[in-house]
């Protein structure tokens, strides 16, 4: 099979081709490494590209031949966001602070990729410490959206989204603290799932907002994403917040019938401020599902007004504590010629962190300070409880809740760096989901008049990935049929 053919295949198709000996893991890995070499100069979606993956692919080919590896993704190349620890492989978090950090251990999700027999071809670019919605805050330069060179890919998993969209990886892993998988998936026209909090182990994921962070798959279609979830999910003794859950039934995903299922549309998700094209594409998608027999109803979710402040207080509070360990002493960036401990701290953190990270560390320290704790952090926890309640009520009535992923399609490069508040407000549709901990998927649902992809967000009940994956796959099928 030649490189061009290989690169066109979905991850499941590629895995099947490898198992059927139509190609090999080595051939596939080489095809992608070549494609990266040729094209990633334009996108900057990778921070680290692993030439040594080729040798690993050869070993995997042997294991597939001997029957040791039998998984559907065995031999398939994969890209991993650079905030997941990879043993012996640079893990930078997109930051100068960790520009030289090589972890001595694998994140649990990474270990599971290896156990499946996947080949890690590289580590993808991201907003520094996953803080940002555009992949422009990376120490290693911005990533460019394959749909337009002056467009951001979204973020923070912009590299993981762009590499899949540009066919520089068949599938990737991202992480999502407030929309960091779904929003770049939407901006880049791919499928991205944020699983239920606790579905995938966070062990080895460099922490940002510990109560919100979740690793998830980013792929070309719903089935790739569904299978990838089965590869990486599961309870992990190393992560006490992980939970025992069932694997997805992939046949049931394929045979899912939306007829008779109920969809709730929160009014606030379609309110003013939403881009007209985005609203139209999502409503057209909902219409398709309705025509297939789903019952659709709008409902008010006024608590959404509190989403942004609640989210930013919680994630910044957790972040300021999580990022305190970067002190120039143990690993990562350390300035030279320091006279005393205080200077070491100040210079390590002033020079090692970028602007957005420092902004959030300061915000976090402020809301946790004595005298302000009750007014901010405690209030945010109370709001969190109310937001959870609103979702519980919605899910007592609906099987899924649907809305846009973001108020707009991909933004122009540089726009939001100058206006952080605007960037924060762009997270309005996604952050609620992390606060509640439920799963949500971004599914491509057409284009704006500027030919930029639009994503539909399908939100499910806790640990009910089965239903949202069923909806996602059903929609994919319906929209294909509609085009024909």
């Amino acid at each position, binding site marked *: 099979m030649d490189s061009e053919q290989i690169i066109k295949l979905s991850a499941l198709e590629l895995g099947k081709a490898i198992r059927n000996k139509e190609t090999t893991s080595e051939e596939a890995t080489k095809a992608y490494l070549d494609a990266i070499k040729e094209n990633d100069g334009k996108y900057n979606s990778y921070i680290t590209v692993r030439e040594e993956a080729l040798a690993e692919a050869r070993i995997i080919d042997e294991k597939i031949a001997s029957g040791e590896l039998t998984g559907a993704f065995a031999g398939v190349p994969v890209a991993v966001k650079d*905030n*997941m*620890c990879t043993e012996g492989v640079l*893990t930078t*978090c997109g930051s100068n602070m*960790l520009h030289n*950090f090589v*972890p*001595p*251990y694998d*994140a649990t999700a990474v270990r599971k990729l290896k156990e499946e027999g996947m080949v890690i071809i590289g580590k993808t670019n991201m907003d520094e410490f996953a803080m940002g919605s555009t992949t422009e805050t990376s120490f290693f330069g911005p990533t460019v959206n394959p749909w337009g060179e002056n467009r951001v890919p979204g973020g923070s998993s912009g590299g993981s989204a762009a590499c899949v969209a540009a066919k520089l990886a068949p599938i990737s892993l991202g992480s999502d603290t407030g929309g960091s998988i779904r929003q770049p998936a939407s901006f880049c026209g791919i499928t991205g799932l944020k699983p239920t909090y606790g579905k995938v182990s*966070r*062990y*080895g*994921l*460099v*922490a940002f*907002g*510990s*109560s919100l962070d979740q690793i998830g798959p980013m792929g070309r279609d719903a089935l790739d994403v569904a299978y990838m979830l089965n590869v990486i999910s599961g309870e992990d*003794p*190393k*992560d*006490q*917040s992980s939970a025992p859950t069932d694997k997805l039934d992939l046949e049931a995903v394929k045979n899912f019938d939306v007829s008779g299922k109920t969809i709730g549309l929160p009014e606030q998700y379609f309110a003013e401020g939403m881009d007209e094209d985005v609203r139209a594409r999502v409503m057209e998608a909902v219409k398709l599902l309705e025509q297939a027999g789903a019952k659709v109803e709008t409902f008010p979710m006024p608590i959404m007004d509190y989403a942004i402040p609640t989210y930013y207080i919680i994630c910044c*509070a*957790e972040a*300021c*504590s999580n990022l*305190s*360990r970067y*002190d120039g*002493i*143990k*690993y990562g960036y350390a300035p030279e010629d320091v006279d005393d*401990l205080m200077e070491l*701290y100040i210079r390590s953190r002033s020079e090692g962190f970028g602007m957005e990270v420092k902004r959030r560390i300061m915000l976090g*320290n402020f809301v*946790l*300070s*004595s005298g302000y*704790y009750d007014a901010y*952090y405690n209030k945010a926890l109370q709001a969190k409880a109310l937001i959870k309640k609103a979702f519980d009520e919605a899910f007592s009535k609906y099987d899924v809740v649907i809305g846009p992923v973001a108020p707009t399609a991909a933004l122009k490069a540089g726009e939001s760096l100058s206006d952080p508040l605007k960037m924060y407000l762009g997270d309005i549709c996604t952050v609620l989901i992390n606060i509640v901990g439920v799963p949500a998927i971004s599914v491509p649902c057409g284009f704006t008049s500027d030919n930029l992809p639009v994503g539909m967000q399908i939100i499910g009940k806790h640990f009910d990935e089965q239903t949202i994956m069923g909806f996602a796959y059903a929609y994919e099928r319906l929209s294909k049929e509609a085009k024909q």
Partner: protein
Amino acid sequence: MRDYEMVIGLEVHCELSTESKIFCGCSTKFGGAPNTHVCEVCSGMPGTLPTLNKKVVEFAVKAGLALNCDITRNNKFDRKNYFYPDLPKAYQISQLYCPICRNGHVDIKTSQGEKSIGIHEIHMEEDAGKLVHDEVTGMTKVDFNRCGVPLLEIVSEPDFRSSEEVIAYLTKIRDTMQYLGVSDCKMQEGSMRADVNLSVRPRGQAEFGTRTEMKNIASFKAIERAIEYECERQIDLIEGGGEVVQETRRWDDEKEYTYAMRSKEDAQDYKYFPDPDLMPIVISEEYLESVKASLPELADAKRERYVSELGLTEYDADIITGNVTVVKVFETAGAKCGNYKDAANWILTDLLKLYKDEGVTPEDKEFDGDKLGTIIKMVNDGKINRKSGKKILTAVFEEDVDPEEYADRNGLAQVSDASAIEPAIRKVISENTKAVDEYKVGNTKNIQFLIGQSMRELRGKADPKTVKDILEKLLSEL
């Protein structure tokens, strides 16, 4: 000068003697080359997460029950955020909002009588590492071996009014932890540390004075000296028209004075918040009952039982129960030989002297109570005499020999056969006619001399009482 009284509250840190650390699988063993008991979790590598060692909760509940506390059913861990190179995550996982134990008390005895000291709370937390300053290179290095060793912090109410009370309380806490087997509380290894909060006020005044805090004082003696010094310093200050400043002070045990480290103005804001990586720990009724059932008999109960059931004097019972290692030796030896009073006597007159002479504590040098029991039994059965018993005891103490084998090898078995003893005594009688004659005319004290000579003739291997009996019989026949 007015009459002042001191008011003291204590924060005691005990390192728990779990096999592994509180949030990872690393060993808690003391010593070890720097950074050898370390993994990615306890060294604070990016992306790592804590997993709670359930043994720590069990030990904390045990300690809480033994110190008469209420046990918190819904527990959480909080992060205490501060920067210091010995704290690799830059936060310590501790408990601020829901400490595992509250409202306890410890009953102490001092020369002033009995008193109950309140315990405000006990919480679980992780220890930090250690900085090592190298004088030669001027470098400071960090050793993370102690990072993540589980600690209990026991916070008392400000109920102490003298250093004597403080020492009595600390002794009681240490004994209790040792009895429970939850901490070895060795101050010299840092597994027990105390912070002393001290203020003074004119006697009779209701409100407290301004307090200072003295951190990490490393021995009972140093604590006593630090309290006396700091109390006098504060009184002198007030009497001289000054004011006590709320601050943290360091006790220098060599120079015997305290000096200011940081004042209240520099006090850190630790920005505590609940640790999102650790799930709440719920303590069920069943769990609590099972821990209660597993509690060992503690010092007070043992002391009472030793007196009432085993017939020990209160003094002897006090000394034995004052050290849990000695208790173990006592109970094992008593069970082995079937005579607890003898076991107590041997321990108090012989064994403890061996420890004292060598300048070591029972914890430092283990002694097998079973072997002591064997020795006592051999003596009581007349197989060896007491003197040989002591000889064997010393050999066990020094080389941990087997008592019976040692007795055989060194020919210590007692000659109890009269036919073997009689000729020797006859020989003594015939060689000491002067003493025998005097004895016959009423100088009965001479019997001791003759026994001594006989024992010498028998090379100490006979039971002195048997020798006396035979000697008296033979003398009366003369």
